[in-house]
């Protein structure tokens, strides 16, 4: 599910976003023409990401490291002047942004958005932990159940062959007595083994309970991300050139409100909930 799905304004917002970005780029180009050389925002000498990048999960945090590796492979063609110009420009933009934020009182909004990022991060960590725990529970139970099933299979085959020999009249009385006794033992043992296997199957089933929890968490993260997008878009709009300001902006600021649950008030384990209910007389 993408962030914008189900948002009827998404196309409108995207178009607005694009036009604001375009206007800003024009303004930047103006700045660039004033300096001696054009400063590429994304260095052209970086090769398009190839094999190394493909396997990287976006959560691994190794992206920067990869770029570093790629850079060390390719000859550094950019003169030092480029990067100092770029740093100047970024510094200048940061200062402008900072002042604009303060003037507009938007820093409070941005602070709120920034505050929701650790919350989203915690939630994502929670999803990662739950899914990992679940995968381990499933693998452990499977590995524990497999030998039980295999042993039963082997023993059943062995006894079956013996019985075939009996039907072929190849067993004497003593061998038959032994076979009957072994078969009886096996039949007594099978329910114990199937019961144990059943318990492992239940364990595998219970390990799927993460799906409902992670589903809810991911939904909340989607809300947080959507709010961040709204706030950033509002910021962009406030800083847009005058000709863009006639566009309606009020609805942009009324993004979905985030109810940041926090953890302090969580009665998260059964015991505490039970105690609480008991104290309430239930």
């Amino acid at each position: 599910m993408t962030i914008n799905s189900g948002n009827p304004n998404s196309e409108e917002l995207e178009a607005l976003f694009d036009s604001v970005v375009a206007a800003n780029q024009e303004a930047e180009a103006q700045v660039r023409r004033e300096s001696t050389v054009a400063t590429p925002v994304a260095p052209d000498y970086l090769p398009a990401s190839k094999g190394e990048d493909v396997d990287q999960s976006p959560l691994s945090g190794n992206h920067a490291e990869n770029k570093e590796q790629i850079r060390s492979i390719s000859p550094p063609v950019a003169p030092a002047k480029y990067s100092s110009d770029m740093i100047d420009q970024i510094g200048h933009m940061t200062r402008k942004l900072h002042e604009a934020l303060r003037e507009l009182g938007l820093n409070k909004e941005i602070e709120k958005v920034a505050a929701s990022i650790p919350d989203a991060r915690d939630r994502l960590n929670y999803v990662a932990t739950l899914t990992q725990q679940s995968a381990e529970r499933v693998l452990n139970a499977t590995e524990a159940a497999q030998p039980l099933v295999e042993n039963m299979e082997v023993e059943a085959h062995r006894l079956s062959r013996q019985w075939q020999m009996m039907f072929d009249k190849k067993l004497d009385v003593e061998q038959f007595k032994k076979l009957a006794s072994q078969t009886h033992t096996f039949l007594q043992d099978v329910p114990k083994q199937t019961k144990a296997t059943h318990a492992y199957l239940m364990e595998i089933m219970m390990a799927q309970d993460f799906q409902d929890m992670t589903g809810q968490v991911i939904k909340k993260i989607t809300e947080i991300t959507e709010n961040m997008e709204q706030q950033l878009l509002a910021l962009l709009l406030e800083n847009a050139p005058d000709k863009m300001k006639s566009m309606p902006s009020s609805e942009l600021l009324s993004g979905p409100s985030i109810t940041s649950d926090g953890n302090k008030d969580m009665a998260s384990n059964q015991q505490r909930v039970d105690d609480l209910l008991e104290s309430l007389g239930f």
Partner: protein
Amino acid sequence: MEIQDTRFLVVDDFSTMRRILRNLLKELGFVNVQEAADGVVALEKLKAEPFDFVISDWNMPNMNGIELLQAIRADVMLRHLPVLMVTAEAKRENVIMAAEAGANGFVVKPFTAATLDEKLMRIFKNLHD
């Protein structure tokens, strides 16, 4: 009526959780189990045919678990039904709200088969006392 004949309605928007609950109930000897994906569907089913027990999630679209619980308690035909809340909403105010709305039990997700068993048995015991 034998306790094993209890007709359950399991209400949860996640099909995985409904299946888990159904399987756990089967494990505990209860085979008469139906499912509903939210409070609205649940209420329709409850009004259409007889049930003896409701197990409901809290956080659901259309009509959440607490609204379902309130609707059940407000309905003369349904108000006697035991309702067990099974939910990840484990904040204090949730627990208090559920208790005040007339829930018969509260199980916090994730839970074990033993916890579910214990809560069910306690509710059955209270019903028959």
